[in-house]
């Protein structure tokens, strides 16, 4: 592998502010209003003025407010960097990574990454809609058979894992229960009613082997995070959360000819570059906020990011290895997309920052200096993305 990953501006940029709105089934307001609210909160958290923003990054599937409109509304006169990345959770960490590039190279000074969506009340993922020419090109080869929602695609991979490693429904169920348990004492979480493994097994089938409780929420809400230079971050009120490493790029889907095992984690190749960019390995990670649009991707990422050999996760789950209290690698300490909310992965960054600052109150994990935060592992679009964050 080339040394290109070493070129990432490791630790030179930091997250200095976080903001979010209430997460709900119906915000009652526009994504414009949601984004503005989260950005105001994040800038206030950083003790910075709105007019200091000189970059805005977001992503989405044409379902949100774009950076140019926000910049006009916020009165940002000197916009030095912007990114309006098309696509979903697979690119969620790529916007954070690219904000770090922009600030790390000095072309921008204060970049806000945000995601605002009315994913429940307005544009639902599961909603049937006729294809249109603006959809990703390869969608046309799946939709005719009704193969049209991520639950189905990832259930297909989950099946391949079950066939190869003997993974069982109960193993996916333990991940659903883990996330729900972590959400119970999270005041931001939408799902705070306890569930048991029996509840999981009894929940209705959506796309077998996925039950309803394998599937994440659809939510309204917004998250914003403020990225600036580490040098500047040291003068701001919170413990700086350094962007130590990042990788974004290729995943694996059925259109990648040449790939022939759907059970292998597509996170693996990305993980290698990610760790290299940060100059660390899996052993350096204290906790992880992993993209959990469904349960199985959690299992696959635990393998792909090097925390377990393929097939080992079920036994580790039974041993509590990923529990927030006492686990060797606490995961999704806020309940994740499965039980906190679906803010398309940016809520994972919010939680990681609170944990690293030591501000997570009763959710606080013991070791909280270094976090892995990931985007969707790369099954659908063929993209994936991840960052490693560390307390200064």
């Amino acid at each position, binding site marked *: 592998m080339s040394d290109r990953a070493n070129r990432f501006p490791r630790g030179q940029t930091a997250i200095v502010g976080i903001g979010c709105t209430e997460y709900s089934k119906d915000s009652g307001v526009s994504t414009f209003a949601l984004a503005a609210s989260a950005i105001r909160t994040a800038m206030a958290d950083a003790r910075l003025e709105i007019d200091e923003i000189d970059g805005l990054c977001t992503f989405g599937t044409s379902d949100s407010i774009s950076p140019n409109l926000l910049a006009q509304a916020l009165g940002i006169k000197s916009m030095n960097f912007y990114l309006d990345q098309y696509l979903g959770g697979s690119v969620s960490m790529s916007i954070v990574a690219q904000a770090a590039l922009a600030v790390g190279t000095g072309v921008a000074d204060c970049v806000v990454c945000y995601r605002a969506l009315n994913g429940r009340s307005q544009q639902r993922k*599961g*909603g*049937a809609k*006729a*294809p*249109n*020419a603006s959809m990703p*090109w*390869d969608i*046309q*080869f*799946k*939709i*005719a*058979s*009704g*193969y*049209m*929602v991520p639950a*189905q695609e990832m*259930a*297909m*991979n989950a*099946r*391949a894992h079950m*066939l190869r490693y003997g993974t069982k429904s109960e193993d996916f169920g333990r991940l659903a229960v883990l996330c729900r348990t972590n959400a119970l004492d999270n005041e931001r979480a939408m799902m705070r009613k306890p569930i048991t493994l029996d509840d999981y097994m009894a929940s*209705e*089938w*959506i*796309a*077998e*082997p*996925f039950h309803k409780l394998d599937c994440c929420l659809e939510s309204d809400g917004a998250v914003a995070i403020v990225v600036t230079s580490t040098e500047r971050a040291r003068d701001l009120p919170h413990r700086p959360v350094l962007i130590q490493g990042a990788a974004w790029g290729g995943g694996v889907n*059925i*259109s990648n*000819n*040449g*790939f*022939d095992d*759907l059970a292998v984690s597509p996170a693996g190749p990305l993980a290698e570059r990610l760790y290299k960019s940060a100059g660390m390995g899996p052993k350096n990670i204290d906790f992880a906020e992993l993209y959990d649009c469904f349960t199985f991707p959690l299992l696959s990422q635990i393998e792909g990011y090097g925390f377990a050999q393929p097939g080992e996760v079920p036994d580790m789950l039974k041993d509590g290895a990923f529990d927030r209290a006492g686990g060797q690698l606490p995961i999704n300490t806020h309940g994740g997309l499965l039980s906190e909310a679906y803010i398309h992965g940016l809520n994972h960054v919010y939680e990681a920052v609170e944990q690293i600052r030591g501000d997570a109150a009763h959710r606080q994990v013991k070791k909280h200096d270094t976090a892995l935060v990931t985007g969707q592992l790369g099954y659908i679009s063929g993209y994936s993305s991840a960052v490693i964050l560390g307390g200064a």
Partner: protein
Amino acid sequence: MAERIIAPIADRDSAPYWQALADGHFKVTHCNDCGHWTWPPRPICSGCHGGNLSLDEVKGTGEVFSWIVVHRSTSPDMMQYVPYVLALVRLDEQADIYIPGRLISDKEVHRGLKVRVVTEKITDEVGDLAWTTEGVPL
């Protein structure tokens, strides 16, 4: 001809593929230089990255590699079949090509189940495919 609410949108790369299915033929992009098969029908060979490609009919046979049972469909066209098996089929021609489609069969699905393609005309220009075990020797 099948009435469909959700049908593929043919574009400059995919139109001949959908046309072939409408005409009852399952054709896959085939490299005239290296012989590699590429799916979906892209303008670049996945084997040699060349562009000397034809759309050639395949045997239309393969094996189920993975499958799900769709209990909750978001497709208005597919709701009538729920619950139904949606299979990823590995083509006999080349092991790295997986084609999704509804499985029409009264046999219990398992990895390695041998299937063949069935085509369905949606419009004069666009067709669809499904998989069946009917008439396939075990």
